[in-house]
């Protein structure tokens, strides 16, 4: 069962001037997030990530299309009882202490006064801010603010947590804490839908990802499945004992010249980069034929960053969409 269902969602903003075309933030976006999964929503700045999240939270009205959250139309007041939300780079009421801040959000979530106190203590401990409970938020570091922001999103024990760039601006320690929190939520069976730029974290914590470019979903699926599609990006071969290999004009280097995309000679050692694994056998044969000694063969798989960058190419949209049609569920 899906917790988030988006079908053909579009959003345009008026330019404010007659005759000038509207700005299209979302252009027929479709995706689903299943219950209990951790879904990473990737895309460059201005791709439409925040607009999508705002529509899901009812902060913005879609121009057309369908957005359902927990089985109800996006923005439904009652279903918000089951959703926790952290906006991007939020400013919080900095005159409040951490404790007052969470109490306030507990009241807004409709929690009983007796329950609020225990929830506040538990959450402050969860986000490692127990010692700062009486400190005003204006004295918090950015990482602490992000963690208290996460705590407010969790105060009412929501089933679905929507986070907009939860790791932005955090140092490695802060990122790890947020990452662990997300993993912890997933382990509790919660659904986590978050947008981010921090790709290494995505590989670690996401069950599935979606990449959005110019308001359209260009890739969606399990990280390993998406990376497998690209297969091996390149192969690096290190050998020694072959001199003059860098001279590509020499007749004896004809095979190497045909196969390699890059050759680097340092002393006796030589690095040869091949564009794919199909050429490895012939290159190894050539090295042996020339009396060289093979030291290593290292295949380089397509990384999430490669996939992300490739998806951002202007002409990749339609090609990739075609390729992925039917693979994303």
């Amino acid at each position, binding site marked *: 069962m899906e917790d988030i269902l988006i079908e053909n969602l579009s959003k345009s903003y008026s330019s404010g001037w007659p005759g000038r075309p509207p700005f299209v933030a979302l252009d027929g976006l479709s995706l689903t997030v299943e219950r209990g999964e951790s879904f990473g929503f990737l895309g460059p700045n201005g791709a439409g990530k925040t607009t999508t999240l705002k529509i899901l939270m009812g902060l913005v009205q879609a121009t057309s299309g369908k957005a359902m959250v927990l089985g109800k139309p996006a923005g439904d*007041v009652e279903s918000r009882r089951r959703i926790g939300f952290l906006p991007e780079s939020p400013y919080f009421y900095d005159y409040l202490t951490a404790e007052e801040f969470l109490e306030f959000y507990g009241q807004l979530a409709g929690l009983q006064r007796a329950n609020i106190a225990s929830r506040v203590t538990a959450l402050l401990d969860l986000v490692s801010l127990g010692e700062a409970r009486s400190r005003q938020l204006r004295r918090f570091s950015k990482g602490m603010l992000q963690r208290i922001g996460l705590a407010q999103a969790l105060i009412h024990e929501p089933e679905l947590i929507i986070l907009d760039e939860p790791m932005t601006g955090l140092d490695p320690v802060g990122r790890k804490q947020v990452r662990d929190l997300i993993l912890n939520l997933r382990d509790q069976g919660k659904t986590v839908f978050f947008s981010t730029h921090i790709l290494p974290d995505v590989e670690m914590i996401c069950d599935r990802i979606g990449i959005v470019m110019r308001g359209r979903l260009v890739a969606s699926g399990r990280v390993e499945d998406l990376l497998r599609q690209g297969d091996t990006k390149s192969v690096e071969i290190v050998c020694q004992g072959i001199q003059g290999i860098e001279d590509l004009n020499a007749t004896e280097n004809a095979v190497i010249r045909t196969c390699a995309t890059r050759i680097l000679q340092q002393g006796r050692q030589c690095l040869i980069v091949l564009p794919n694994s199909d050429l490895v056998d012939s290159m190894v044969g050539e090295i042996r034929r020339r009396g060289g000694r093979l030291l290593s063969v290292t295949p380089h798989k397509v990384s999430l960053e490669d996939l992300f960058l490739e998806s951002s190419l202007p002409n990749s949209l339609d090609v990739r969409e075609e390729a992925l049609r039917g693979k994303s569920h």
Partner: protein
Amino acid sequence: MTAIGAIALNAFRESLRDKILYNLLLFAGLLIGLSVLLADLSITEHHKIIADMGLAAINLTGAIIAIFVGISLVNKEIERKTVYTIVSRPISRSFFILGKYAGLALTLLVNIAIMFGVFLVTLGLYHVPIGLSLFQAIHLIFVELLVMTAIAIFFSTFSSTTLSAILSLGLYIIGHLTADLKNLAEKSESGVTSWIMSALYYLFPNLEALNIKGQAAVGIPVDFGYLLLATLYGMLYAAVLIAGACLVFQRRDF
């Protein structure tokens, strides 16, 4: 209702922890002090000058708080994105506006009470008689501030901070000149001008109807019928504006 109360208390707490309000209270104290100084310099009507200027100081300070805090209440939340975490809660957006309005009304009530307390002490020190009329005047000042707060919040739901300030201040000034609009309507020979002036007279808030400072300063109370009618007028005007603000806020994108 819990949500409205929580938002109201939070707005009140914000204003308490905001040092601008303390500066304004100091400003009111100085103005009341100045009224004593002016009264000392004048030959007659010491009591009237102290009472009149004191009430005017309270009114002016209250209006500054109502307009400038009022316009920032909603705009600041939008600019700083704090509104995202509020309106994404299981509450109606109208609750946010109502809570903010109630919070600022509470802030104004506390501020007016403090300033009125200082004012009464000043009157006592200078042996100025303290009559019912002063309490009636301060009551209607508070009603006027409730109207001004509603105006400021209404404008801030759809315009920038600067524009909201200009529009609110404009209405505050026009609101005290509505009698002139009525005069113009009555004296105009053109039917169109007369109709427009009459329409504007009824459209703009008649803040002069809430101003009884002049007669309160000389100790003449108004009858309770007038007081009740003026209060109802002010509350109704504020309610319509707050309803309008809720309607606009309900539909806007963030």
